[in-house]
């Protein structure tokens, strides 16, 4: 019998009943389980990925920079004289050694092989008595000679691509002519000099051996016939005692002249008047020891000074409110206890490299107040040159070697202090929080303080919550507890639609319709906040005295619907009455009245407008969650309370709200998270100026809006790009904390309800 059945089954087996098929079914089932599990966990992966990717981009900002030696070799062409200056070309391929005999030795940086040697054309009786450089990024150098004349040279690196391979050929040029320029008619040797070449105007200033200060200005004269315009030259003897001067700097505007003695007497002169120099300030810049090195910081707005005690300090001319400039100490770095022998500023950022006479070399960033690299060379350095891109340096050491190092220092501008703290920026009267990121010029000091943006974010969120929290929570309490179910069915979708409204439309209305409206009817807006609640209270007072038939014709729980016309009327009344009040109490114009009486300024796109627009956007978020929490308070709690004789309102306050308070808390948290991260409304409804001003009538710039404005133009992997990612990370962490907190609270609340 069983055989028959088996036979029957195997013979007439349905194809789907075959064991292979059954296995295939089970396999599919198993595979699907894995797939679904993967998909489910993918959600966690997504959020973790976002966090870690943001972190991954931000991380290089906080990496400690590194430097490592690449090659050491003997000083090339040693017979050409002692080194007075070293320089490097942008690609770190070719270096130049300027010697005290007027030779310029170009050598390959990789191995020290001399490539080319040029000599300054000197007459028999001329010897070099002084040397200085102009702007480093322009490659300008000048020799002062024993007969009171000056020769200006410029190194120029020609880049060609024969056979698609880069070839750099060094050349020297004489931008002011090959003939020495006679600065001192009395032919005294020039002991110190400084110079700046400009497009149209150039200046050379030199101190003579007998203590006079000579200035020569060159104005380019347009020539119709040749590109080589000629120069008109004016010589002036400045009325300044130059006998003690050891250091001399002229800024790129050829206006401010900085003169210092070894013992620290610093004088700053204004040369804008061509005839006479005006003393701006005089300062003692070292307390103990002597000045041992002095250079401009890139941008030439600050002077860097190194002293014999190993202190590097940054000084700058600071303008006070009377437009008077004084020379002040901005910040200083302790390098070592040994004299600083050379300062080599970066040419594109506000960084600086220094060397002392014990072999310590260090790189600092002034704005970030950060010591980036500190190393000790085997022997003390005598000469130092940081490359134009600041990714390498060469140092000549006293044992006659040149040491070539690589530097990895991508983001020196960022430190905890430069991002969150007050920083004293150049040309600012005092330390401040400033966000100002982009500028086309290399000389610009980027200001990456996120504090004003964070402040703006919190300010916008605060005003939005000020409007949203009371409206949303009160509305939620009423909707969940008092409202008739029929009306609730209408209200809930309306609020959902309110939540779905694109913020770009809210922002557009806020910026183009609300902001001008508020500006014109400021008092009306404020009067609404008083008149409407009063009208509601007044109406409810009158309601109880209305005839019973009328009252009973409207079922309970429809109060909100009756109030709609009341509120519209009250608003209209406020609109009518506010101009009258304005002319009675505020001289007809409340903005002017505030300004004259309290000095409160008014910005058209301000926090009030943002508060209203963003409050509108946040209300539905808070409302939905809070309403949900209040509505799901178990019925037996409320019924019990009412049965014990409590009024509905007492039940609401003492029982319902108390039970639902964790849910309400999480609603507010999530609303806050939304307000903090909202982009389009603030972008469109504020002026986006990163000011730190609590006033409700001033604008702000938020983190989110800042990202939206600046991200598209930030260069990939630049400091700016990474700082914007940092801003995004801050937003992420901020909202992550709020959301997680809110969700945990809600989960606990749900458990509590289900156990009740």
């Amino acid at each position, binding site marked *: 019998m069983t055989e028959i059945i088996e036979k029957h089954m195997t013979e007439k087996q349905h194809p789907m009943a075959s064991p292979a098929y059954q296995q295939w079914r089970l396999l*599919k089932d198993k595979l*699907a*389980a894995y797939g*679904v*599990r993967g*998909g*489910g966990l993918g*959600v*966690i992966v*997504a959020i973790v990925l*976002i966090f870690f*990717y*943001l972190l991954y*981009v931000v991380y290089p900002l906080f990496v400690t920079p590194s430097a490592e030696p690449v090659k050491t070799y003997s000083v090339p062409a040693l017979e050409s004289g002692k080194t007075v200056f070293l320089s490097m070309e942008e690609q770190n391929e070719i270096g130049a050694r300027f010697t005290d005999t007027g030779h310029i030795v170009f050598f390959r940086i990789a191995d020290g092989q001399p490539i080319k040697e040029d000599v300054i054309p000197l007459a028999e009786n001329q010897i070099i008595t002084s040397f200085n450089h102009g702007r480093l990024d322009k490659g300008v150098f000048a020799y002062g000679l024993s007969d009171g004349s000056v020769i200006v040279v410029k190194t120029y690196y020609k880049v060609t691509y024969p056979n698609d391979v880069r070839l750099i050929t060094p050349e020297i040029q004489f931008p002011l002519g090959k003939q020495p320029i006679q600065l001192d008619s009395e032919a005294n040797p020039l002991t110190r000099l400084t110079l700046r070449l400009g497009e149209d105007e150039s200046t050379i200033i030199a101190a003579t051996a007998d203590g006079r200060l000579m200035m020569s200005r060159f104005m380019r004269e347009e020539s119709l016939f040749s590109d080589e315009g000629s120069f008109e030259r004016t010589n002036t003897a400045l009325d300044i005692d130059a006998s003690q001067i050891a250091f001399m700097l002229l800024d790129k505007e050829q206006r401010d002249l900085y003169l210092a003695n070894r013992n620290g007497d610093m004088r700053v002169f204004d040369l804008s008047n061509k005839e006479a120099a005006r003393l701006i300030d005089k300062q003692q810049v070292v307390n103990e020891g002597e000045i041992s090195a002095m250079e401009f910081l890139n941008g030439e707005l600050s002077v860097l000074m190194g002293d014999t005690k190993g202190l590097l300090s940054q000084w700058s001319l600071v303008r006070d409110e009377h437009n008077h400039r004084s020379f002040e100490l901005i910040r200083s770095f302790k390098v070592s206890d040994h004299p600083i022998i050379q300062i080599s500023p970066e040419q594109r950022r506000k960084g600086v490299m220094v060397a002392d006479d014990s072999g310590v070399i260090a790189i600092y960033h002034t704005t970030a107040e950060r010591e980036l690299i500190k190393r000790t060379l085997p022997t003390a350095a005598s000469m130092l040159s940081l490359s134009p891109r600041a990714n390498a340096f060469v140092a000549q050491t006293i044992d006659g070697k040149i040491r070539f190092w690589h530097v990895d220092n991508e983001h020196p501008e960022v430190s905890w202090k430069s991002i969150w703290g007050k920083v004293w920026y150049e040309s600012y009267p005092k330390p401040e929080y400033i966000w100002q990121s982009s500028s086309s010029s290399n000389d610009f000091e980027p200001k990456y303080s996120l504090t004003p943006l964070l402040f703006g974010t919190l300010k916008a969120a605060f005003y939005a919550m000020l409007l949203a929290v*009371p*409206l949303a929570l009160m*509305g939620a*309490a*009423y909707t969940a507890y*008092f*409202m008739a179910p029929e009306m609730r069915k209408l209200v809930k*979708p309306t*609020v959902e639609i*309110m939540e*779905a409204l*694109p*913020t*770009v*439309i809210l922002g*557009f*209305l806020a910026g183009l*319709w609300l902001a001008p409206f508020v500006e*014109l009817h400021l008092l009306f807006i404020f009067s609404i906040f008083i008149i*409407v*609640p009063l009208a*509601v*209270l007044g109406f*409810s*007072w009158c309601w109880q005295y209305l005839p019973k038939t009328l009252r009973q014709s409207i079922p309970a729980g429809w*109060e*909100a619907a009756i109030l709609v016309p009341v509120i519209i009327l009250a608003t209209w009344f406020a609109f009518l009455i506010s101009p009258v009040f*304005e002319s009675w109490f505020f001289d*007809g*114009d409340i903005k*002017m009245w505030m300004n004259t009486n309290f000095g409160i300024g008014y910005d058209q796109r301000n926090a009030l407008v943002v508060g209203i627009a963003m409050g509108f956007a946040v209300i539905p978020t808070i*409302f939905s969650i809070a309403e949900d929490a209040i509505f799901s308070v178990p019925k037996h709690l409320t019924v019990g309370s009412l049965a014990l004789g409590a*009024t*509905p309102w007492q039940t609401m306050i003492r029982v319902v709200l108390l039970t639902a308070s964790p849910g309400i808390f999480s609603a507010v948290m999530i609303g806050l998270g*939304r307000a903090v*991260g909202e982009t*389009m409304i603030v972008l469109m409804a504020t002026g986006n100026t990163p000011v730190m001003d609590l006033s409700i009538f001033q604008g702000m710039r938020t983190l*989110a809006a800042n990202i939206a404005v600046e*991200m598209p133009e930030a260069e990939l992997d630049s400091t700016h790009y990474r700082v914007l990612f940092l801003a*995004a990370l801050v*937003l*992420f962490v901020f*909202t*992550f904390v709020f959301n997680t907190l809110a*969700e*945990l609270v809600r989960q606990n609340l749900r458990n509590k309800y289900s156990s009740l």
Partner: protein
Amino acid sequence: MKNWFKSGTPWVWLNAGAISICLIMVIGLVVLIAARGMVHFWPVNIYQIQYQDDKGEKTIVGEWVDTVILSAAQAKEAGYPILNNADHLEQRLIKTGNRDLTGRDFLWIDAQYLKNEKKPEDLIKIERREWGNFYGRLKAVKENGKIIAEGDEAYPEVLPRIDRARDLYEQIEHLQKKEIGSINYALERLRLKQRRLELEGALDEHARQEITREKAEYQQSYQKIRTQIAKLNQAIMRDSLVAETGDGQTAEIPLKKVVNLTRPNAMNIGQKMAEYLRQLYAFVTEDPREANTEGGIFPAIFGTILMVMVMAVLVTPFGVIAAVYMREYAKQGFITRVIRIAVNNLAGVPSIVYGVFGLGFFVYFIGGNIDDLFYPEAAPAPVFGTPGLLWASLTLALLTLPVVIVSTEEGLSRIPKSVREGSLALGATKLETLWRIVLPMSRPAMMTGLILAVARAAGEVAPLMLVGVVKLAPTLPLDGNYPFLHLERKFMHLGFHIYDVGFQSPNVEAARPLVYATSLLLIMVIIGLNLFAINVRNSLRERYKALDN
């Protein structure tokens, strides 16, 4: 009174007031946008007004746009003189057009200097391809420089000629954009092909000849089209019209530049209605003109829809799988708690952070690597390593993932256990139960989630600004050139269009009605989608309630 307060009634009323205020705000906002957006297309009357201030008398022709009433103090502060000690100053904005002649489109005038206003029937409004509208009177129609109709005869004469010019213009546009565009596209592909062969070292003589031959073919058809265009251009330049502005200047306008000529003052209500519908149709179907401040928004609608569709394809499977895992597979416990927290965080992370992530991770990291691997021939120009449609869709898919998850999950949770148990009891595997029973039943819930996600994505702007939206895309991301769907292209988007035209355009005043109209369209789409989703969800709830019983 004290008892009344003690009873708590006033507080209940106040709470009721809060929700009333919210309702008033939502409805007021929608009504405001609807009112402002809908009037944009209505052919309003053109007024001719006499205006006399201390500088003398002049005639102004234009449309009333706006009125602002300043109190006396405000006017004084702004420096406007007030006549006759009036307690307020009424300022009116009139759209005068004729920007090529006067240098501006709008004029603020003080109502107190207004002498009279008329609306003669012969005033015309010309929409032009450049310089905005023209307001004035039609004087003559010219053909090849010779006047063929003047005065009253000019108007009936000019209309068919405008139709002809418009027709020719469309032909030229078609040739220039479609035909030449596709030739350029083919040439670019040839160049890339050549470069690719070069990089692979496979560019032999044969291939080279083949490419040269193809290039020559394209060049030939290009020349053919050029001559065609030249011919059409000659034809379109035939006619022109002469018109006079309100203050008596005459201007000759070639019909090539005319989009539309109307006499709104002479229209009856039916004609106005027809004109309104025509304008509305043009708005939805035409390309923008004059830096997006005029013309239609078709590319923005198209871009939005396409982006949302690609996003829907990406987000639905992931969202559904995640929801299925949480409801059907995972044990309720720690893991589901963590997932729920993750979902909530995905929903709560600011959208701009998604934009930053999309730009860094999708565009630069993934896109850059795709370029290196698959498109070496295009270097240094990026293909996928630059913001584009795919990355925008992917970013928004991530952003809307929680919406789909939450909604699907809700649907799954409402399916009665008995249904699943029945299926399992009959021997179905878990997958079969899921695939045949559970998922089909929860289809409306998924649909709800998808619709809500679409509505959210259609309105989202901030992340898109970083990952692929542009103010003016030269080509649509979907066209007749192989491979038809160009996921790497940048696209236009309604929400961004609102931001860009409202805030970045040089002529905000002129563009404002357009922004309202665009907002209205967007808001209608989003409200429509949401209402639909809400309805689907509600009917679903009812159905499952019935099943439960």
